[in-house]
């Protein structure tokens, strides 16, 4: 039976020149788990809002055609009736939560629709979403993942037959993302709900969804079973959708004639095991040599760009050469994660310390009861010129560490040194020449009404002579010249990030801190930002990135620091971290899919990118 039937739906927003949805006809079966994919701005979210009646009842505009949801014509029913048929969870779900306590918010809709058993419905929904025991908690006590589950519970409480989620996992770390999809699968399989997700993470689509629908220019290109859909690699890539890495690797191998044409492309690691079984692993040595060279070049360039003295430049080059050499020694064999003292010892005499934490402790005030301890005697040092990735689950203290460094928070005990000097007695403003922090949420960095003014601000208030020229250069570098007069808030996600980066390196700081630079971005934009970050390597010196994005970590970082419960639990190169199962399991790090694929085929394989995978696995 079809739960959604759409015929010739065409819709345009008020005052829009052309329709955003064009002639859509679609049937969705009851109990389906459907993923909607498509380019940015192709009308995915708009389409979903026609299903719960927000369009055309709340958002007006030109509406033609019929939409039937659970047998009801949306034109003839009101939003309230439709809300009981189709629940909706927004991408910015925290704005969807309007009540202060968990149970209150989960049952709020039921109360408003005057259902006598509203409290029971709320409790039931919370239990379904795995939030039992948190009923009386206040919403700010929840983590990001739990907040999302609460938004879902708020929709589930009305017992709708259909649940629609807009980009459910874009803000979450992998373990929380798994939890969300676990809940969705349960709702789908055990409770027979029809689930519709707008999703860019094709790895999750491959694991959980039954059908995939591709939207293009406001129309539906096709709707196919998941495996079949994900194998249409070229069509997806043309729409900026990246199929799972396993599929991409197989696709490339097939093009090169290394896999038989008639064999279907694998979409999951399990399928990949079968598809790639004839390939033999061959360790590739050349790759490490290449990175060493690249680092030589980048250190020299960095020195040039920041105008440090010749002696320092020589030192910096030395340091990274030493590091690279260190990596050569380590490459290939899996060693226990080094304590940070060990790393420092290895190249200690070369690299000058850029950042040093000595026995730093910090706790946050809490509303009730004991203060929450974030860091307990943290020790960490970063040498000049290092490119460090800081990883760990939500709440491990990554952002806090960065705020401490930028002088925005003061440690409760211990001391922090920046380029050898303690920052205890310094004001934040004095540090801004040495260190710069780019927030996770770029909107909070926009303090002027155009991005040009924003980028220029720090230089202007310091009366730098070449302010205008340098602003122009930065705009050019981050491809923002055409957008220079726009307000930062009104830009797209990727543009906002680029503007944020431009603001961050405006004063040419020796140390750049980036908090989740690729979070909340769709995959195409994420790739673009990753490219930008790689391009930036030659103009920045010491860079530290806090992130959940393991592809970014693998492709960008030279050193990885793992935080867990306020302590550094592992520190080393990517081989040392990802090669060490004890560490990855303890902290819940998920390496990129291609790495898992490589490991599944051969225990020693350490391939972080599709290129490395293709090089490492050859025909027998």
């Amino acid at each position, binding site marked *: 039976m079809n739960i959604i039937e759409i015929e010739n739906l065409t819709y345009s927003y008020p005052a829009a020149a052309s329709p955003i949805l064009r002639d859509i006809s679609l049937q969705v079966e009851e109990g389906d788990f459907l993923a909607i994919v498509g380019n940015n701005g192709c009308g995915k979210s708009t389409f979903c809002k026609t299903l719960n009646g927000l369009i055309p009842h709340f958002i007006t505009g030109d509406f033609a055609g019929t939409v039937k949801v659970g047998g009801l014509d949306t034109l003839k029913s009101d939003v309230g009736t439709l809300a009981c048929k189709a629940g909706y969870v927004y991408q910015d779900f925290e704005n969807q939560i*309007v009540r202060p306590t968990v149970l209150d918010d989960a049952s*709020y809709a039921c109360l408003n*629709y005057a259902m006598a058993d509203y409290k029971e419905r709320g409790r039931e929904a919370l239990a379904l979403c795995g939030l039992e025991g948190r009923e009386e908690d206040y919403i*700010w006590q929840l983590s990001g993942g739990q907040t999302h589950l609460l938004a879902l519970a708020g929709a589930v409480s009305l017992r709708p037959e259909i649940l629609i989620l807009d980009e459910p996992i874009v803000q979450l770390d992998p373990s929380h993302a798994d939890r969300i999809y676990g809940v969705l699968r349960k709702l789908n399989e055990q409770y027979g709900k029809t689930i519709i997700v707008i999703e860019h993470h094709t790895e999750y689509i491959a694991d959980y969804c039954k059908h995939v629908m591709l939207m293009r220019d406001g129309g539906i290109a096709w709707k196919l079973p998941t495996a079949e859909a994900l194998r249409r690699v070229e069509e997806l890539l043309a729409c900026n959708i990246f199929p799972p890495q396993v599929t991409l690797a197989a696709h490339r191998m097939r093009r090169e004639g290394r896999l038989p044409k008639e064999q279907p492309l694998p979409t999951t690691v399990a399928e990949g095991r079968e598809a790639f079984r004839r390939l033999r692993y061959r360790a590739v040595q050349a790759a490490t040599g290449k990175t060493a060279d690249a680092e030589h070049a980048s250190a020299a360039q960095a020195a040039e760009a920041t105008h440090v003295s010749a002696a320092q430049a020589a030192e910096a080059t030395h340091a990274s050469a030493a590091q690279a050499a260190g990596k050569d020694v380590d490459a290939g064999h899996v060693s226990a994660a080094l304590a940070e003292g060990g790393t420092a010892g290895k190249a200690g005499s070369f690299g000058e310390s850029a950042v040093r934490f000595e026995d730093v402790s910090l706790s946050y005030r809490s509303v009730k009861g004991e203060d929450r301890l974030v860091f307990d005697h943290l020790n960490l040092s970063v040498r000049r010129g290092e490119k460090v990735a800081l990883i760990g689950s939500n709440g491990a203290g990554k952002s806090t560490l960065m705020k401490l460094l930028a002088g925005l928070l003061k440690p409760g005990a211990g001391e922090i040194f920046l380029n050898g000097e303690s920052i205890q007695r310094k004001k934040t403003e004095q540090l801004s020449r040495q260190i710069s922090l780019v927030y996770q949420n770029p909107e*909070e960095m926009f303090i002027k009404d155009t991005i040009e003014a924003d980028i220029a*601000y*720090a230089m202007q208030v310091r009366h730098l002579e070449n302010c205008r020229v340098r602003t122009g250069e930065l705009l050019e570098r981050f491809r923002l010249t055409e957008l220079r007069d726009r307000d930062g808030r009104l830009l797209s996600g990727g543009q906002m990030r680029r503007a944020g980066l431009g603001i961050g390196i405006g004063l040419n700081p020796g140390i750049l801190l980036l908090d989740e630079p690729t979070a909340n971005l769709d995959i195409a934009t994420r790739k673009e930002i990753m490219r930008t970050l790689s391009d930036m390597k030659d103009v920045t010196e010491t860079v530290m990135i806090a992130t959940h994005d393991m592809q970014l970590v693998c492709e960008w970082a030279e050193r990885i620091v793992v935080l867990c419960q306020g302590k550094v639990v592992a520190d080393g190169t990517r081989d040392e971290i990802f090669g060490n199962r004890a560490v990855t399991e303890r902290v819940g790090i998920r390496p990129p899919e291609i790495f898992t694929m490589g490991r599944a085929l051969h225990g020693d394989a350490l391939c972080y990118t599709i290129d490395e995978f293709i090089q490492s696995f050859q025909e027998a």
Partner: protein
Amino acid sequence: MQTKTKKKLSENILDKFSIDFLRNQVLKNAYGNDDTVIAALDPRILLVWYLFLGLVPWFVNNLWFLMGCFLLVLVTTILARVAGLVLLLFGVGVFTQTGYLLVVSLFFGGNASTVVPLLILTLKVAVCSLASVTVFSGLDPDRLSNGLMWYGCPERLSFSISYAYRVLPMLMEEFQNILLSYRMRGNPPEHESFRGKVKYLIYQVRIVMHAFYPLMLNTAKRSRTTVEALEIKGYRYAAVNKSVKKMKLSTLKVTYNDLLFLAVSFLWIALSILASTLF
């Protein structure tokens, strides 16, 4: 000594007295004391109690009666475990209203005839303020708004009260981050000399004002989702549906404790009146 205080004054505005601290105090005030005696009382009873102590002292000039009221609200304020910041504001408020006059008149040879009227005025202000503090910060916002709704205040007002408390922490956090953006990129005037310190203070106040503009825009952007979500959650339906109101108010119950509270307050007030007629 003097320079030290000055230094503290200029640095404290953004450093010690941070937004983080404010946010914490607001949350503490709203939700941190939901297990106190006062918080457990029925909001309707408390509102009646407040109506009496908020109005009557203005019309009575008897020192004994006012002292009695003052002691009563002092006890309830302690019972409500009100957050420190609110008490500080109360202290500063009362002092700047009338308290300073009292001190000044004592200083310049005032005697009982000048002190008593001022003391009476100060007590009146203090009783009203402390009664408000007890009710509005001892009750959590949801119970308070339910109580108001029972007395016929429009549903929109009561929703606004609890929603304001819901978004306030978010807004403050965002405001803090925007201020930090200014701190990271700004270039404040040096503040070693006295002139510098004054300039620095002015600079800080200006930054705080400037930071409102991005805050407003960011909030406007977010509220789009909130408005749609409220529509889906049936907020508009509830506003016109009488039975929803009934369901919301069905959680209110007058208990033995409420009556006890009323009785004790009544007895105490009666005693003060008695005292005022005797002396």
